[in-house]
C-alpha cells in the first residue's frame, strides 16, 4: 500500500480497535491511542525519509475513482509543503496524547470516545493535506470539524458548548462559500473539456477576472476563517479557552494550518490573477492581524486566550509570508507553520498543566512558580521564547525569513510587522513575570512540578524547537523546492537587490 493511504489508515484502524475495548478499561484505551499515534509517526518519518527532496512533482501519488459520475477521485499526493505539515501532525499527535493523559477523565463521554475522536481527527488532518482532488479536500476539510466539535463540546471546560457551536458555525460558513466556489470550478471545467475536480486540471482553466475574483474570495474567506485572519478570528480565543489543552494544540497547531496551507495550495495555484488583485488587501489584513493579535494578547487576562491571540499574530506572519510572493516569504511561511505547531504545542501543554494544577486559567492567580515548579516554569519560558522568536529557537528562522521576504517587495508592511516582535516580547514577558516571577502567591505553594510522563511529552517538543533553531536545513531542504515551484508556477520571481537605486 502507498504511504499516504497507510498513514491515513493507521489511526482509523486504531480507532476501530479502541472502539472494541470495554468501556471500563480507560487506561488500555489511552495506551492503544498512544501506540497507534506512535506507529503513525514512525510511518510518517519513514515516508519523509523516502521523499525525494529535489523533485518538485507531487509524490506518493495515488488516484482511484470514487464517485465516477462526477469525476470525483480519491486522489492523494504530497509536495514538500504538504509533507512537512503531515509530518508535524504525525509528530504532534502522540505528544498530545501523552501530554493530555488525563484530559478525558472529566468529559461528557467516555475516555474511549475521546481517543477515537483524536484518531479520527488525525486521519482527517492527513487527508486534508494530502488530497489532490478538490472535492476530496473539501470532504476532509468539513469532516475535520466533526471530531473537533465533539472534542470541544464534550471534553472542554467552561462554556464549552457555546464555544463548540461558535467554532462549528464559523467554519461551516467558510466551508459553504468554498463549496460554492468548488461547484463553480466544476461547472467551468465541464465547459472547458470535461468535468473534473483535479487541482492540476483546474489550475489551467480560463476564467474572466470577475469570475476569478469571486471564486478566489470563496476559497480565501474559508481559509481566512480557518487560519484565522483579522476580522474572522473571534472564534479562536473562545474555542481555545474552552477546549482541553491537547485539543487546543491540535486546533491551533494542525487545524488552523489547513487555512494557510489552503491559501498556498488552492488560492494561489487556482487563481493567480485574482491573487495579484487581492494581495494588497490581504497584506494589509495580515499586518493588522499581527499587531492587533499582539495587542489583544497583551490585554488578555486568561492564559489560554492569550496563547490564542498570539497565534492570531503568528498567523498574520504566515499569511504575510505567503502573499509576499518571494521564495524567502514562502519558505519562511511554510516553515513557520511547522514551527508554530511546536511552539504553540509547548505553550499550550505547559499552560494546560499549570491550569490543571492550579484549577484556574487566570494569569493573575499564578505567581512565583519559578521557585515552586522550576521545570514547569522553564518549559513555559522556553516555549514563550520560541513564541517571541528568539534567535536560536526555530520560530526565529521562519519569522525572519518572512520579514526579509516581505521587505524585498513590501517594505512598509514588513516594517509594521517588525513592530510585532517588540509586542511579542511584551505579551510573553508580562505573563512570565506575573505567573513565574515574583513572590509565590497563596494557592501556588504546593503545586507539583512536572512528572516523568509530562517531561517525556514536552522534551521532544523543546528538542525540535531548539534543533530547528540551530539547524533548520532538514526542514528547509524539503520546503524550498516546493515553495520555489509554487512561485514559478504563478509567475513570480524574487526582486533583485536594488542597490538603493544606484
Amino acid at each position: 500500500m502507498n504511504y499516504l493511504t497507510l498513514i491515513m489508515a493507521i489511526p482509523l484502524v486504531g480507532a476501530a480497535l479502541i472502539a472494541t475495548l470495554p468501556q471500563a478499561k480507560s487506561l488500555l484505551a489511552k495506551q492503544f491511542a498512544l501506540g497507534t499515534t506512535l506507529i503513525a509517526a514512525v510511518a510518517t518519518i519513514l515516508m519523509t525519509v523516502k521523499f525525494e527532496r529535489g523533485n518538485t512533482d507531487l509524490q506518493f501519488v495515488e488516484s482511484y475513482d470514487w464517485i465516477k459520475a462526477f469525476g470525483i477521485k480519491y486522489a492523494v499526493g504530497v509536495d514538500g509543503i504538504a509533507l512537512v505539515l503531515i509530518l508535524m501532525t504525525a509528530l504532534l499527535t502522540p505528544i498530545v496524547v501523552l501530554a493530555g493523559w488525563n484530559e478525558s477523565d472529566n468529559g461528557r463521554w467516555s475516555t474511549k470516545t475521546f481517543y477515537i475522536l483524536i484518531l479520527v481527527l488525525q486521519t482527517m488532518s492527513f487527508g486534508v493535506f494530502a488530497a489532490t482532488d478538490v472535492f476530496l479536500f473539501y470532504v476532509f476539510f468539513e469532516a475535520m470539524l466533526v471530531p473537533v466539535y465533539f472534542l470541544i463540546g464534550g471534553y472542554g471546560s467552561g462554556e464549552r458548548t457555546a464555544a463548540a457551536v461558535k467554532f462549528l458555525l464559523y467554519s461551516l460558513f467558510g466551508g459553504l462559500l468554498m463549496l460554492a466556489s468548488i461547484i463553480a470550478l466544476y461547472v467551468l471545467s465541464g465547459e472547458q473539456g470535461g468535468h473534473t475536480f483535479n487541482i492540476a486540471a483546474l489550475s489551467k482553466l480560463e476564467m474572466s477576472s470577475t469570475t476569478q475574483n469571486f471564486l478566489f474570495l470563496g476559497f480565501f474567506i474559508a481559509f481566512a476563517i480557518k487560519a484565522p485572519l483579522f476580522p474572522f478570528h473571534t472564534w479562536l480565543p473562545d474555542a481555545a479557552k474552552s477546549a482541553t489543552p491537547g485539543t487546543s494544540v491540535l486546533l491551533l497547531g494542525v487545524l488552523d494550518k489547513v487555512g494557510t496551507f489552503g491559501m498556498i495550495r488552492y488560492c494561489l495555484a487556482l487563481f493567480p490573477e485574482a491573487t495579484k488583485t487581492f494581495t494588497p488587501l490581504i497584506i494589509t489584513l495580515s499586518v493588522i492581524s499581527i499587531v492587533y493579535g499582539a495587542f489583544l494578547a497583551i490585554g488578555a487576562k486568561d492564559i489560554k486566550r492569550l496563547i490564542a491571540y498570539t497565534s492570531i499574530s503568528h498567523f498574520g506572519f504566515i499569511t504575510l509570508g505567503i502573499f509576499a510572493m518571494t521564495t524567502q516569504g514562502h519558505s519562511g511561511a511554510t516553515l513557520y507553520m511547522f514551527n508554530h505547531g511546536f511552539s504553540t504545542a509547548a505553550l499550550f501543554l505547559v499552560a494546560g498543566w499549570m491550569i490543571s494544577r492550579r484549577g484556574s486559567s487566570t494569569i493573575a492567580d499564578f505567581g512565583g512558580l519559578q521557585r515552586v515548579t522550576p521545570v514547569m516554569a522553564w518549559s513555559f519560558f522556553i516555549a514563550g521564547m520560541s513564541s517571541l522568536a528568539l534567535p536560536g529557537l526555530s520560530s526565529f528562522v521562519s519569522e525572519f525569513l518572512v520579514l526579509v521576504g516581505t521587505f524585498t517587495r513590501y517594505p512598509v508592511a514588513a516594517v509594521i510587522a517588525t513592530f510585532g516582535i517588540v509586542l511579542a516580547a511584551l505579551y510573553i514577558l508580562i505573563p512570565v513575570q506575573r505567573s513565574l516571577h515574583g513572590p509565590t502567591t497563596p494557592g501556588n505553594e504546593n503545586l507539583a512540578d512536572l512528572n516523568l510522563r509530562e517531561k517525556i511529552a514536552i522534551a521532544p517538543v523543546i528538542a525540535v524547537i531548539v534543533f530547528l533553531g540551530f539547524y533548520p536545513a532538514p526542514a528547509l531542504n524539503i520546503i524550498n523546492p516546493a515553495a520555489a515551484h509554487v512561485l514559478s508556477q504563478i509567475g513570480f520571481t524574487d526582486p533583485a537587490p536594488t542597490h538603493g537605486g544606484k
Partner: protein
Amino acid sequence: MLVNNGLVYLIALPLFGAALLLLSGRRADRWGHLLATALSGMSFILGAVQFYQMLGRSPENRAVSQKLFSWISVGSFNIDAGLLVDQLSICFVLLITGVGTLIHIYSIAYMDHDKDRRRFFAYLNFFIAAMLLLVMGDSYLNLYVGWEGVGLASYLLIGFWNHKPAYATASKKAFIANRVGDMGLSFAIMIAFATMGTVSFSGVKEAAEGTSQGALTAIGIMLLLAATGKSAQFPLQAWLGDAMAGPTPVSALIHAATMVTAGVYLITRSNFIFDAAPTAQLLVVIVGAITLLFGAIIGTAKDDIKKALAASTMSQIGYMVLATGLGPVGYAFAIMHLLTHGFFKAGMFLGAGSVMHGTGDEVNMRKFGGIRHFMPITFATFGLGYLAILGVPPFAGFYSKDKIIETAFYAGGIKGILIGSVALFGAALTAFYMSRVMILTFAGTPRYDINHPPHESSFLMLLPMGILAIGSVASGFLLARGEALVHWLEPLFEAHEGHGKEILPPVVISLMALAVVIIGAAIAWFKYGRGTVADTAPTDVSIFTRIARRDLLQDDFNESVFMRPGQALTRLLVKTDDVVVDGTVRGVAAAALASGSSLRSTQTGFVRSYAALIVIGAVVLIAAIWAVTL
C-alpha cells in the same frame, strides 16, 4: 582568508557548560561553578592562542574564519553559520573571556550563600557563549543571534532574584528596551538584503560601494538604533539603571565591561556603512554626546552606588559612541576606551560588590563612609579604577579618554568645538560624581553601626579585583604605546589621513582635560569631603537635583508617552474586539435566534395543520410545474 576549524570551541565550551549545568539540576550543585569557571578559562586560553597565532602573521592575513554549516538558505538568502575572528573580534574575545573568567572566579565567593549558585553560573556561561557569538559571527544575522542571546542572558541575570517583583520588572524592562533596539538591527538586515542581496560583513562591505547614500543612511540609522538599545544610549537608555537589580558580578560583566559595549562593536564593525553615510555618522555623534552628558548628570545625583556606576557606564559608552561617530580616526580610540573601560569599570563594580558584601548588601552610599579602614584592598583597587576613569595620567583612562576628547576637538569647525566641549564638560562631571562616590564610600566618618564594621572580602574576590586594577593601571599605556592598537586595527578601516585640523596642540587639550578633572574632583571634595554627610538624602534641594534624581525623567517620559497610551490602546482594542468584531458576529447570531423564535409561532404542534401545509406545498409545487410546462 585563513580557515581555522577550532574557532567554534571558543563558543561551544561555555555553551556546553550552560546546557550541562541547567539540565543536570541539583546534582551539579557541588561542582557546577567550578566547571563553569574552568570552561570560561579554557575559552580564554583558546582566545589567547588565537591572538598569539595572529600576532605571528602579517596584518593582511590575520583574520581567520570558519564555516560550520549552511544555516538558512532560501533562494538568494544564504546565511552560513560562520565565524570570523579578525583584529577587532579578538580584542573583544580576549576582553569577554578574560574579564568573564575573572568574574566567574569572583562569583564563586560572592554567590557562595545563594542556593541557586549553579543556575547563576549556567547563565554566566551562557552569556559568555552568546557574547562570543556576537563578536565572532561573520554576518549581521549571526551577530543578531548573539545579540539577542546576550539580551536573554542579561534578562535572566537581572531577574536572577526575580522573586522580588521590582527585580522581575527591571529584567522585563531591559529585555523590552533591548527588543526595540533589536528591531533596528532587523530593519538594518532587511534593508541590507533588499538593497545589496547579502548580509555577511564581507559581502556588505563590498556592496556598500555600489549602494546609494539613502540606503546606507537608512541602514546606518537602524544600526544606531540597535546600538542605542544594547548600549543603553539615548533614547533607549532607561533600562540600565534598573538592570542593577542583578547580582553585582553581572553588573560588572554584562552591564559594564562587555554586553553594553556591543553597540560600539556593531558601529565599529559597520564602519564601511557609516563612513559612506555622513548623516548617520552625525547622528551617532549626537547620540553619543547626549548620552555622555545624560549619564554623567544622572551619576551626580545617585545615592545608590551601583546606580551611580551604571550612570557612569552609560556616560562612558557615550564617549565610545561619540568616538565611533568621528569616522576612521575615532574607531581605534573608541575600542581603546572600551577595553580600558572594561578593566576599570569592571574593577569598580567588583569593588562595589565587595563593599556590599562587606556591609550586608547595603547599596546606599550615604550609609557608608570611611570604609577604607576596614577594606583596604578593596579601597586600593577601587581607587586605581577611580584614577583611571578620571583620566589621570598615566592610568588607563588618560590614554583613551584624552584621545577621544582630542579627536572630538579635531573633528573640524563648529562641530568639533561643540562636541569637544561636551566631551570636556563630561570629563569634569565624571570627575565630580566619581569623586563623590569615592568620598562618600571610602572617606569621611562611618555612617553605619560601628559595632558591626564591614569586613574585607575573601581572597577569591580580591584576586579578580587586583588583576583588574592592574589592568586599569597598565592597559592604557600598553595599548597606546607606539599607537599599538591603532596600527593593529588599521587594516579593518578605510585609510585616513591623520588627524583633522589641529585647532589646538594635543598637549593643551590634555592639560585642559586635566584641569577640568581637578576642578570637578575639587568641587566634590568641597561639597562632600569636608563636613559630615547626612545619611538620608536631603529633600530641600533644587528642582534640577530632583529631576536628576529621577533619572532626568526618563521613566516618566517613557511611561507617559509609550506605556500609558499603549495600555490605553490595549484596553481599547480588547474592548473593540469584544464589542465590535465579536459583537457583529454575536449580533448575527442573535438576529438568527430572533427570527427563529418569531417563525416558531407557525409551528402549532398539530399534526393536521402540518399535513395541510404539506398539501398546500404540493399544490404550489404542482402549480409551478404546470405553469412552467404550459
